[in-house]
């Protein structure tokens, strides 16, 4: 008969007291304050890191695509205000000259919004890089391509010059 009150007393003995809860709450608030202060210091560097990595990735993709197309290019010229057209030697007997007509393959690069698009006469079109703020192709020789990328506050400019092989 006396078992129930004893069990109840023991059950209450296993929990936190109000004093312990108070101390824990204060400690948790201190930890949260420290964490928030730390995050305030740390957050901008994380954002910058993500932006920098994104820019690097996009720049690398653009450079690799240009390199792939320039490998067999025999002619290149500005196309519109912010575009580039490449003439790749084609056919069974490559002439070595830019004929700008089949069997040579023409490849176009153009800035659409803030993406750099690549297309050719087969109709294949895909995005080479995004976060592109500017893409200009200079007139004259040697051909000079300027690619500017921007993501948040991080910006990068890359200049590609079509050059003869070094001896």
């Amino acid at each position, binding site marked *: 008969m006396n078992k129930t009150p004893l069990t109840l007393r*023991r059950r209450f*003995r*296993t*929990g*936190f007291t109000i004093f*312990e809860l108070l*101390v*824990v709450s204060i*400690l*948790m608030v201190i*930890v949260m304050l*420290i*964490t928030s202060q*730390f*995050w305030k210091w*740390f957050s901008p*560097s*994380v954002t*910058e*890191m993500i932006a*920098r*990595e994104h820019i*690097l990735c996009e*720049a690398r993709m653009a*450079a*690799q695509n*240009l*390199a*792939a197309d*320039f*490998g*067999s*290019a*025999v*002619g290149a010229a500005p196309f519109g205000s912010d575009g580039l057209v490449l003439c790749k*030697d084609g056919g*069974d*007997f*490559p*002439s*070595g*000259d*830019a004929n700008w007509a089949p069997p040579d393959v023409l490849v176009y690069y153009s800035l659409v919004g803030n993406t750099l698009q690549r297309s050719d006469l087969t109709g294949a079109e895909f995005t080479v890089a995004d976060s592109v703020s500017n893409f200009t192709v200079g007139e004259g*020789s*040697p*051909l000079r391509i300027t690619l500017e990328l921007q993501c948040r506050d991080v910006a*990068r*400019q*890359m*200049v*590609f*010059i*079509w*050059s*003869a*092989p*070094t*001896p």
Partner: protein
Amino acid sequence: MKRLWSKYRDRRFFAGAFSFVELQIALVILAMGLLSFAGLFRIYSLQTRYIEQSSLPVSTYYIVSQSNRWMQQLGVPADMEQTAGQSAWTPPVSGDKAYRIRLNRLSKDFDNSLADANVTLEDVNE
């Protein structure tokens, strides 16, 4: 108050619950874990900056197209140099028609400049 203190001193009181010290230690470990986790991000950020500086020291690149006819036919990418070439670019392909080249198979990695190709040559002078 004396009664409350005697309750604290009772060993049975601590038998089934967390103690204040345990909780404090747990919180300290949690805070250290959070700080070390953030420290890892900081190291990662510094490494990324280092990679950026070491991989792209200059922003000007010279695109050098393949001068070898074979390389052109096989679609090998242009070289990216950091020094200027000798002169303005002139297409190097001579246009000599010795062989008809038929590309049977070509496999190459996107990242790698090496390519594996299988071609058939037909002598057009015969």
